[in-house]
């Protein structure tokens, strides 16, 4: 299974990871169309929790925990683990009870209050060999763990 590791010392705070995360999860996969015609917002709709405090920044995504509390807490099994070990979220099953948000120790699951369901959660970019955030990080602050 792919694993992403982050390094705050290398993070420039450019937030390109978020822009490319949203693009990778859009219909068109085209950076212009994603934000122009598909209506995504680059910094809101990503699967990444970006933090900034003074000069320190980092971008954190789901850790795909071995003993994932979000799977245990999910009332509908919308949160599940696939055969590879990736923790995934099925929007169709989600009812927006926010139990996953309550138990995720990393705070990386984002709620969509309007549609009453989890808005975004890192899926390690499915079939893509390298997740979009890793590929587009200009300073190797987000890397694939080997």
């Amino acid at each position, binding site marked *: 299974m792919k694993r992403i590791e*982050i390094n705050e010392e290398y993070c420039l705070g450019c937030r390109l990871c978020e822009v490319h995360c949203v693009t990778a999860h859009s219909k068109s996969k085209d950076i212009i169309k994603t934000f122009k015609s598909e209506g995504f917002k680059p910094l809101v709709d990503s699967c990444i929790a970006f*933090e900034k405090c003074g000069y320190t920044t980092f971008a954190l995504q789901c850790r*795909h925990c071995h003993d994932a509390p979000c799977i245990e807490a999910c009332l*509908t099994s919308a949160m599940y683990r696939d055969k590879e070990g990736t923790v995934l979220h099925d929007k169709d099953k989600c009812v927006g009870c926010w139990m996953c948000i*309550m138990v995720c*120790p990393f705070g990386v699951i984002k709620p969509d209050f309007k549609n009453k369901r989890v808005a975004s959660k890192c899926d390690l970019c499915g079939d893509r060999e390298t997740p979009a955030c890793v590929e587009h990080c200009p300073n190797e602050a987000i890397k694939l763990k080997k």
Partner: protein
Amino acid sequence: MKYVIVGYSVAAVNAITAIRESDKTGEITVISNEDQLYSRPLISYYLAGKLKKDKIGFTSKDFEKDMKITVLYGAEAVKIETKSRHVELNNKKKLPYDRLLVCTGGSPIKIPVDGLKDGLKGVFTFTKLADAKELEKYIEKNKLKEAVILGGGLIGMKAAEALLGKKMKFKILDIADRLLANTFDKEASALLEEKLKANGCEFLKETTIKKVIAKAGKIEDLVLSSGKKLKAKLLIMAVGVRPEISLVKGTPITAGRGIIVDSRMETGVPGVFSAGDCAEGLEFLSGKGAVIAIWPTAAKQGKVAGHNMAGVKDVFTGSFAMNSVEILGVPSISFGITNPKEDGYEVLKKSADGKYKKIVIKDNKLVGVILVNCIERAGIYGLLIKEKLDVFGLKKELLTDDFGFLLLPTDFRKHFVTGEGTEV
């Protein structure tokens, strides 16, 4: 190995999955007094019409087949014989076991009210799918638009959510001076009360029912503790839930409020385990046993019980109360001790723009949190409680809107974000 599991909900499902990790062939029999497996907390979504058809389950469709288990639906366990190691069913059938798991959950508390008799039409509890289905039928048949909910706790709020989905108006009565009294304080409750009011509903605090007046077998009016009379063609009794432990009464399996278990979720009787809403597992903050009737705890305890039943050592490290409630677009999450009654606690609050944050600290450790309308990243607070992080220098940070890892000590943050603790 013969496994028998009494009760079939989240603790059972997690136990079964855990058993099957190591024991692929042992015989697992589950006794369920329901007619299907479903997620109890979803009954409010079901009644509100927010669930797609057949989405009330919480396992894969083929769970029972994949796990090679036998589920006896509609069966009731009536007796446990710990000496001869078998469970007796209501049809006199005896099921022998080598390992037994009692995960019978909770049942609604009944309180005596003058004039409230069993079988009175228009009075419902709200914990099972059958309750929701009957309630739905009754509302439709009688074209009801209004209801009274007795109890402003979790179940009362669940019922409220469901009725709001049916575009009904209701009054919530509670003996306490606030909604969700076990976790909320008055400020947090006020945010919900305001919303309820704006939607034509009402919360009557410090109020209970003195008398129920019926007409032709149907509920008609209530006389309240205030002396006022209230029209009520539908009454939902949501006073609370108590652990369902009647099965272990008269057996050597000891119980307080719930069934007493050790850290392996085993009761005092070897081979008999318990988990979920009927069990008194370790409460993390007090270090003592307590019933913590929430889904994630039941899942965890079930998993630990399952491992140990199959002979794989696993320990339940404790949990604390937490919950997530959203009503009328006001999401809230709470953790731990939110209304400390003794001295020695420090309470910090922040309230602005309809958001409310309350932090409770003891000995410089975070022990309780209320978040209303600001639940983003709530789980990090849970992590701080669990890790007993010293928050002496962090009090201001805990209240900020952009609370996150960067506000925490570097060592702590790095451990969880980039170091050893990056996955749990």
